[in-house]
């Protein structure tokens, strides 16, 4: 099992824009390069891409939660 870590500190978003479905639902499979969420740092938005492939993604934090750099965002099976 691996984890996806936050590359930056900021606010984590699970969808690309308010009101849109999450980029990845819990349980989805993930390929290398898939965007799994966004981090907002000082009003600028950065995509979080998976660096490894995995199955059944399980998010560890909620939409709009604050995160620190290096904090785990999700588990990958």
């Amino acid at each position, binding site marked *: 099992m691996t984890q996806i870590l936050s590359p930056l500190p900021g*606010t984590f978003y699970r969808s690309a*824009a308010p*009101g849109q479905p999450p980029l990845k639902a819990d349980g989805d499979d993930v390929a290398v390069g898939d965007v799994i969420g966004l981090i907002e*740092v000082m009003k600028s938005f950065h995509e979080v891409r998976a660096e490894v492939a995995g199955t059944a993604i399980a998010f560890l934090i909620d939409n*709009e939660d*604050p995160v620190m750099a290096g904090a785990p965002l999700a588990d990958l099976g």
Partner: protein
Amino acid sequence: MLKKLLIANRGEIAVRVIRAAQDLGIATVAVYSAADADALHVKIADEAVHIGPPAAKKSYLDMNALLEAARSTGCDSIHPGYGFLAENADFSDAVTATGLVFVGPSGRAIRLMGDKVSARSAAAAAGVPVVPGSAGRVESIEAARAVLEETGFPVMIKAAAGGGGRGIRIANSLDEFDQAFPQAQAEALAAFGDGGLYMEKVIGRARHIEVQILADGRDAVHCFERECSLQRRRQKVWEEAPSRALSDALRAELCASAVALAKAVSYSGAGTVEYLYDDAADRFYFIEMNTRIQVEHPVTEAITGIDLVAEMLRIAGGEPLRLSQGNIRVKGHAIEVRLNAEDPARDFAPFPGKVGDLRIPGGPGVRFDSMLYSGYDVPPFYDSLLAKLIVHGETREAAIARLVRALRELEIAGMKTTKPLFLALAADPAVLAGDVHTRWLEGWLTDNAAALAG
């Protein structure tokens, strides 16, 4: 006079407002999110109230939390600063409905000026020149095509509910226009909950010049202009006053038009009327009015000696305007640069982090407005503005020399900031000559990317 003020903001502007209030003997209440418990505005205010988690939506934008904080601490007034709820008409109304004083204009005035279409109409009605374009909202693409005969190309399609550079598209041809118009409609609806659009001719090469206003609901005065042509992604980075581009006659006309607009809408408080100035045609056009104190207000304070935030507080406390137009005079030249937590060497990537050694410049003609202190951990959740360096000199040349001197003194260890950008700009021949326009900096950044990266 107000007795106890809640400052519904954070960062350098919260510090600035607290200082002005304390100078006037008004008690101050800071508010803070969980990420700002150690912030300077919390430390210097007389009291502080925790209002929620880091996300601004759940703290600094939470009207109920702010009103409850004001009520529980016995405040009689709320200053919104800039950003967050400063230009939210519903917040102004809600504060007033609670029986408190909103330090700023009425909800009615904010609504009128916040909708770019009604602002444009109000300006035209007050005799202020507006950029050629649609008379109001354009409801259909057919109606929009008819406006193109007046504007030609390129043309700007703007969201009525937009602002601050957001919700703008530019079309260079009819093909581009036909494609951009429905996209802009959908975008505006998604971003602002209002798909209303209007159109304006693109003024090819223009300066951004704005006029500072103070008004008490009956009378209004101007505190002259600021030029803010150096912008990156439509965000101002360097502001100065006065503008050397204006003749005395045109300056008088420009400033009088801003006063006329403020009076026409019975404006109260501090406000800024923004214009584009077309050098070639020697004409100015209204673009919008900002119904708040602005980031760059210290530039005006430096050349006029007026404490704009203190005047806002006096007006909100019920005093009539103390200043008469004849007593407001310009002395020397001032420049402000915005020190953002951004790395100019890496395309201005945001750079939150911990401040190490902090050395603040001083001496004659130097002002440093900031929320920084040694050991402060800059949170990643908010705007990247760390500090504003304001310099004042007898002439523009003296101000630029002083800017360079002060920037060299400044040390914000541990952080990447926009300081190297300003040192480079202050040595650039076009900047020294004042030969710039609103899109000049974008081109300069492309040409000088390598130098900034080194």
